[in-house]
Structure formats: structure tokens, C-alpha cells
């Protein structure tokens, strides 16, 4: 196990290095120039040069890369060109918002997908299965921004049940005097609609994955044994079939969870959700190299770690797997 872990961590380190180099180069070959965004065109040339020097942009690319890597190894992600604040602070400010929305949506979708998937596989060929599969696929193929806007129009604009966007009501937070419960309720009120839309449009993925995995498991001989043993239908379905069908779900869920950290760029835009996805777009558009690089590297690290965690959980769930 330790040998395996060591091996995997080394693998992750190599992957990360290659990825950082790629991201670094990609941003620098992108047309355009951070100086044009940061610097006022009416500035005198000497001031421009001075500022470029301060940002470290006068150095050749390879030495910029070496400096960047050195700082990274010390845990220093640099300063955002745009905000003028440490990149780390900006990311840590946005990330919890993204986690709140996307991680809860992912967990609810997968929980729902698991519960429905095992049931429709168990009752294969019934109207119940056809209806759920059809509905799931229908919502799965809907374009989220379009659907999101329609939902906002119906529930927020026409019916006035939910806010039009954002994560909080600023007046409530700045005025003071509001209790903690009122503040939590305010966030939940903002969260409800995007969470509902995201879950509705994504549960089918998990459901169909669970369904096919479950159908495969139901063909196994040990399921026949379980039924022959006189176990109740529910025990056969949940303890014997679903437990085994869960195995392929773990990897997919871990990946899905890690990708959810990036936040849907489109979703966050539609619902004006102040998360990481929205930040990545603006950082890229603003030539904010340190922020954009850090965000990408950060997400890649999460994806790689999630894979490792999935493998470890896998070994725990399936006694046949030992590293």
C-alpha cells in the first residue's frame, strides 16, 4: 500500500510539473499582453517600463518560469495583476461559494442518481423505468443557460419566489443587526434555484451509469444465489446488487466532484454566482496571468488528488483490490 501510494504521488508530481509548464506557456503565447490591461496607454514610456519590470514581465520567458516555479514551491502563488492582492486570497474567497453550489448539486445528483438508478434497473421494462429514463435524458440534454434563464424568468421574475441572482442580499449583510439564522436563510434562498436547476439537469448522468452498472450486476450468479437463499427482494437489491454496482460509480463520482470545483462557467454567469468559474473567465480575459495560472493549477491538483482518493476508496469497497 505504501509503495503504491509513493508511486502514485510521484506520478502526480510529474503530471503537475508538465501541466504547470503547459499552462504557463499557453498564457504567454495567447495573443495580447497584460501590460495593455494593467497599464494606462497614456502613461509615459519610462513609467511603463518600470511597471513591467515590477511585474517581472521584462525578463525572458524561461527565467520568468524559473522564478514562478521557485515561488510556487515556497507556496507563493503571486499577486493578481488585476486585484493587486495575493492570488491565494482571491481563490480562497471564491472557492467556498463554488463548493456550496456545485458540490452540493453534485452530491444531491449522485445520491438521487444512485437511488433511482438501482430502482429502474431492478424494475427493468416497466413503465416506471421508461418514464424516468426518458425524463432523465430529456433534462440531461437541455442547454443549461437557456433552461436557467427560463427558470429565473418564471420563478424569480414572474412569481417572485426567488432572487434574480447573486448569493446574498447585500443590504441585509451590511446593515448589521440581522441574526445568523436570517443570514443563513438568505444564502439558502439564493441557493435554491440554481441548485434545483443544476440537480435536475445532471442527475440523469449518475442515474444511467448506476442503471447500466446495476443491470450488469443483476446478471451475476451471486444474485441468483442471494434470491435462492430466500432473502427479501430489498436485501437482494440493496445489499447484494447495488453494493456491487456501486464500484464503478466511485471513480466517476470522485472525478465529477473534483470537476465541480471549477464551477460551471455558464451556470455561474447565468445566476451571477460569485464563484471560481466566473473568476477564471475574467482572469483569462484580463490577462491576469498569476490568477488564471493559479486557478488552473489548483483545479488540476484537485482532480489528480480526487483520482487518488477514488482509488483508495475503491480498495476499501472491493476486497479483491489490494495495492
Amino acid at each position, binding site marked *: 500500500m505504501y509503495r503504491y501510494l509513493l508511486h502514485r504521488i510521484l506520478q502526480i508530481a510529474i503530471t503537475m510539473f508538465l501541466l504547470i509548464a503547459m499552462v504557463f506557456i499557453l498564457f504567454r503565447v495567447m495573443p495580447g499582453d497584460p501590460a495593455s490591461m494593467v497599464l494606462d496607454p497614456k502613461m509615459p514610456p519610462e513609467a511603463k517600463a518600470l511597471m513591467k519590470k515590477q511585474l517581472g514581465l521584462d525578463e525572458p520567458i524561461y527565467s520568468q518560469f524559473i522564478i514562478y516555479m521557485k515561488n510556487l514551491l515556497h507556496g507563493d502563488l503571486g499577486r493578481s495583476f488585476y486585484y493587486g492582492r495575493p492570488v491565494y486570497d482571491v481563490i480562497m474567497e471564491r472557492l467556498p461559494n463554488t463548493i456550496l453550489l456545485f458540490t452540493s448539486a453534485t452530491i444531491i445528483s449522485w445520491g438521487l442518481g444512485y437511488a433511482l438508478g438501482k430502482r429502474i434497473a431492478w424494475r427493468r421494462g416497466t413503465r416506471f423505468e421508461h418514464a424516468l429514463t426518458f425524463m432523465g435524458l430529456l433534462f440531461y440534454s437541455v442547454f443549461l443557460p437557456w433552461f436557467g434563464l427560463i427558470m429565473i424568468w418564471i420563478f424569480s421574475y414572474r412569481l417572485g419566489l426567488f432572487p434574480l441572482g447573486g448569493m446574498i442580499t447585500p443590504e441585509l449583510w451590511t446593515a448589521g443587526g440581522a441574526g445568523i439564522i436570517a443570514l443563513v436563510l438568505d444564502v439558502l434562498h439564493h441557493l435554491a434555484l440554481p441548485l434545483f436547476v443544476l440537480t435536475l439537469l445532471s442527475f440523469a448522468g449518475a442515474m444511467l451509469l448506476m442503471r447500466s452498472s446495476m443491470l450488469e450486476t443483476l446478471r451475476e450468479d*451471486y444474485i441468483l444465489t442471494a434470491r435462492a*437463499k430466500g432473502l427479501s427482494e430489498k436485501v437482494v437489491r440493496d445489499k447484494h446488487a447495488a*453494493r*456491487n454496482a456501486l464500484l464503478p460509480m466511485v471513480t466517476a463520482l470522485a472525478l465529477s466532484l473534483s470537476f465541480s470545483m471549477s464551477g460551471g462557467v455558464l451556470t455561474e454567469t447565468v445566476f451571477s454566482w460569485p464563484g471560481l468559474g466566473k473568476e477564471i473567465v475574467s482572469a483569462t480575459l484580463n490577462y491576469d496571468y498569476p490568477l488564471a495560472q493559479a486557478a488552473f493549477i489548483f483545479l488540476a491538483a484537485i482532480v489528480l488528488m480526487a483520482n487518488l482518493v477514488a482509488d483508495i476508496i475503491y480498495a476499501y469497497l472491493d476486497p479483491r483490490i489490494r495495492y
Partner: protein
Amino acid sequence: MSFFEIQGLRMHYATSRGRVKAIRGVDLKMDKGQALGLAGESGCGKTSLGLSILRLLPNNAHITRGRILFHGEDLLRKSEEEMRRIRWKYISMVFQSAMNALNPVYRVGDQIVEAILAHEDITKDEAKERVSELFSLVGLDPGRAGQYPHEYSGGMRQRAVIAMALACHPELLIADEPTTALDVIHQKQIIEKMDELREKLGMTMIYITHDIAIISETCDVMAVMYGGKIVESSKVRDLLRRPMHPYTQGLIRSIPPLHDSVGRLTSIEGEPPSLLSPPRGCSFNPRCAYSRDICRTSEPPLRQLNGGLVACHFAEEIPWP
């Protein structure tokens, strides 16, 4: 009232190509403590018959006619819950692919405990105690009950599956090709073990196999199945000494004799019948050397002859050297 009886059972699978008539009228009678060997080629309906008894057939299978009487009660009329209680407690089964009959993610001992606790009102510790006894009974080290199936060898898994089948002391045990996946040495050990256990526990047993040698060693009565029907049945010794049905004769000719020098082995010409559209008349007639016009038009009934049962129009005339 017999201990166990099947009357006129008919069953088909509904497939996209039509109805596959897997069981086309089977009658069977067994006394308590008897061992019946059910022989026949692959695809003749042996396994379907075993699964019908426990009502474990897949959803596309339909039993259209017949009764399965256990202690005089028709199993086909039981509710799903009544049936659940009968399974394993009264009738249990060793499956064809015993290699995969154990769930890979649970410990072997726990899977047996689960079966016991589903039927008996005893504590988990008592059930574990019984697992140890069962393990010793089938010749497994009780210390290995805490291991997972993949940590067992093929022979050990087979023994574990047999131990599991015996867990609730069933009255009737259906063993469907329990040793096909094993090498000859293990086969012999397991067969002997099962035979020993059957005598010790007074179990009634249905042994489904294509291996006539095994039947001759362990069973009292033998029935031969062909094309979804029983074509011949009688005491094992009688049947092997004087097989009456041409198909049974062919089966016996195709096994090498154990003690005599090996002469010519003959195989049965042709293919087993399609159960999708079985031939008219006797289902064996296309492969039968003795077939005449009547065999192609009229289906021979299973009738009494020389102390056994045979379904052939010309059983009296067909010679056996």
C-alpha cells in the same frame, strides 16, 4: 402422497425470436431420502427444471401448465413471501457456476450467516457457530470463514457453496452441475463428500449433470432428459444395464468404460433439437436410427416397461448388446 412430485410441467421463455419451450411436459416423483440423477445434453432443459422448482426463473420465463408438489402442496400457487420462506430452508440449491455463486465483496462466513438468519430465529453468534460446523462438515478449515471468496481456491469455493446450501438443513437439495468447474481429483472428493452428507443428513437430492459416471456412483434413480422432456427413467442400475430409449443408449455408448479396454466410442449423430420449434412427433426422431413414420407424427408417451419408464414407440424391439 409423495414427498416431491412434478406433474405435467410446461415452461417456455419468451424471446424476440419466439417461444423457447424449455420444459415440454415433465413428470417426476421422488421419495424422501432418494437421490435422483437428471442427465442430458446442454440445453435440454435440466437447469430450467431446477430453477422452476425454486421459482427463480428469469422474468421472461412462463410456466404455462403443471404442478410442483412439495409435501403435497403446489409450489406454483405459493405467494412470493411464502416461497421466500421455503427457499433454502426446505429446498436449497448448489448452482452450476458455483465459482461465481459467492458475492465477491462479503466474507464467505457472513454470506452463510445471512442465509441462516433469514430463516431462523437465532443469534448471530449461534449462526457463526453453525458456519464453523458446516465448514468442518465439508472439509474446510473453519478459520477461513472470515476470508473473502477470492482468497479461496476453486475447490474451496465449491465446498463453501455446498456448506452454504446445507446451512438450514434443507429437506431437498438441487445440485446443478456442482463439480463441472473442477479438476478430476476435486470432483471426486466433492462428490464423495456430498454423498456422505446426504446419507448422514437424510436429505433428498436432485443431481443435475451430464456426467453419467457421477450419477452411477451416487444416485438411486436416474432420469434422462431430451428436448425438454424426460425420455427414460428407472433405477440407476437397471438403466445402465439395459437402457431402453435410443437416446439413452447413445449417451451410454459415448462414455468410455472404466474397467474394460476402450473399444470404439460412438457419438450421437446430429444436433439437439431446437426448443424454439421442436420437431413433430418424437423429438429424437431426426437423430434416431430406428425411426419410422409413426415417430414423425405421434409423440410417444412415457410408459411403464421392465420396471422403468420410457417414451419410445419401439422400446421393446430396440436391441442392447
